[in-house]
């Protein structure tokens, strides 16, 4: 039925995002400085700089370069890194998995924790326990994630010595960044969950469910929670993009070999092909996740599925 139509338009959206981000990145990066100058030694003559420029293909007309970049985006071929000389695609793709193995578990953990704690706080909105939990979430929500990261490193790595401060092999390296992202995500999400649930608990359908003499559990999980859910799921998509954004600083801070660290380095070195590729991969990822969330919301809520006459 019209779920196909829905997905078709989301695909069109993805296309627009791709072209838009490519265009934006192309012109923005070129406004920040000349890689040929940066990559040449300080004492290099103009001839050397010019040779570098030619080697990188930066001497060609801007529009030619732009067209090439656009084509490259759609063929997933971003050429070679200016700084490293190696091909960009494997470079970026190798960093994707480590980054996702931070964000995906953090998102799942944050959603699960927020679901439990937000629901508990909504049901105990007036008593000490509920208020304490929300107070704690409020405070956590106000602390910047990089500060949380510093505190965790200080406590877990430096004082207790149970984890390495930076890097580390395999799973150990994941613990601190995942914890930081989870704390950051869960704080906002649990407050949102509580608010949504309190709101839906006072809505007509829930009063109706109570008036039918349904057990409290059924009223909560089958009537109130579904009403509260759609905005929360949509927010998960936004949270995903927040988390990806946090990776730029977090990965650099913790020396974690992910997309964020790669991107920050590439920006510092004016390594345009890598910046271009990393940003596009991130944009596509965020768009895809949001499409998935939108689709889930649509499947959940029949009002979005039928056209209202």
């Amino acid at each position, binding site marked *: 039925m019209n779920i196909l139509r829905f997905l078709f338009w989301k695909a069109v959206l993805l296309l627009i995002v791709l072209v838009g981000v490519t265009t934006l990145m192309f012109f923005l990066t070129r406004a920040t400085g000349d890689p040929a100058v940066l990559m040449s030694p300080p004492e290099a003559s103009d001839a050397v700089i010019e040779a570098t420029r030619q080697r990188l293909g930066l001497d060609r007309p801007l529009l030619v370069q732009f067209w090439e970049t656009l084509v490259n985006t759609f063929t997933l071929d971003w050429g070679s890194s200016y700084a490293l000389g190696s091909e960009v695609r494997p470079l970026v793709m190798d960093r994707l998995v480590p980054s996702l193995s931070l964000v995906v578990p953090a998102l799942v953990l944050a959603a699960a924790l927020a679901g439990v704690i937000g629901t508990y706080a909504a049901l105990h909105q007036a008593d000490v326990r509920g208020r304490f939990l929300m107070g704690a979430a409020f405070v956590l929500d106000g602390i910047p994630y990089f500060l949380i990261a510093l505190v965790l490193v200080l406590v877990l790595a430096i004082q207790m010595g149970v984890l390495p401060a930076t890097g580390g092999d395999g799973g150990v390296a994941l613990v601190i960044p995942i914890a930081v992202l989870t704390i950051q995500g869960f704080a906002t999400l649990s407050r949102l969950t509580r608010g949504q649930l309190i709101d839906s608990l006072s809505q007509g359908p829930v009063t109706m469910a109570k*008036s039918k*003499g349904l057990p409290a559990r059924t009223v909560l999980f089958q009537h109130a929670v579904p009403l509260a859910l759609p905005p929360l799921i949509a927010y998960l998509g936004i949270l995903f993009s927040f988390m990806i954004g946090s990776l730029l600083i977090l990965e650099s801070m913790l020396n974690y070999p992910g997309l964020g660290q790669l991107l920050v380095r590439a920006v510092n070195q004016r390594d345009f092909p890598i910046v271009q590729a990393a940003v596009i991969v991130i944009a596509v990822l965020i768009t895809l996740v949001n499409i998935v969330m939108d689709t889930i919301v649509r499947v959940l809520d029949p009002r979005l599925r*039928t056209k209202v006459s």
Partner: protein
Amino acid sequence: MASTLTPTPSPGRVAHRVPPAVSLEDVTVTLPRASGDLQILHGVSFKVPAGSVVALAGESGSGKSTAALSLMRLLPWGAEVGGRIMAGDRDVAAMSKEELRLFRSKEARIILQDPWSSLHPMKSVGSQLIESARASDPALSKAQARELAVETMKRVHIPDPKSRLKAYPHEMSGGQLQRVLIAMALVARPTLLVCDEPTTALDVSTQAQILELLRELNREMGLTIVIATHDLDVIAGLADRLVVMYAGRVVEEGPTAQVMANPQHPYTWALLATAPKHNRGERMLTIEGRPPALDALPPGCSFAERCEFTTARCLETRPELVLVDEPSRHRTACLRVQADQSVSEEVR
């Protein structure tokens, strides 16, 4: 087919088939507000005899909906209720959670004001009806509950009920939704039906059909009905007794015909005079002024400010409900009427 809907006792349900008389005795309700507590009901008392239809009439803010909701303990979170609310010989306020759940699922059902916001938007009409039927009678299988749902939808005149089962609330019209709400209550085979403004959201012809339906249910199934409404036309043909409320108090109460033919309280009189049906052909009348704010009720009669007959005493003394007619238990709370009575007693 209709036999399944008539209140013939079936095994296991016998205990609940006797409709309870419902009564409110000096009920007060206070709701928490950001600006401090607000008392909505100030000692409301009335009786609903089993098998009768009692209407609670009044403007918005009179407390009629609060009184109706309090019968089923459905007041918003944080509400403080005083006085006694009785269903048969049971105190509704004293019921345990489980007793209350069973009371709501099997005996007393409510039709809420706004059909659009009462049904669950994410569940099909059929699943909500089936859930309602099985809440009342857990022994029903899904198939039996579905059958009962279809029969009940027929009973409330929903065309093509089988195909409507799959519909979602947003795909139906207001009149249909209100019927679904009524069906939702009826699948439980309740003995008491509380209706909070059941026709306010509907157009006039749909209103008439819904009222006709309620009348049928009362006559054919012996359903006790409490109906809160601001529309006197709703009450005229339906209610056995009329309870007129103003600013959280009962100002007049008695048999509908008698109250309408011979209203004792100036507010009832004004309410009747402003109802479109009762002054045909004339310009529409309105009651001057507005009800007092509930957090700033005057010390005397709450209606004094808008009343044509106000005297100095009305501003100071709050009138109590007194009998004006013994056999019909017609009561009113007006100093003027009470003065007349004492005069006539002196004459006697």
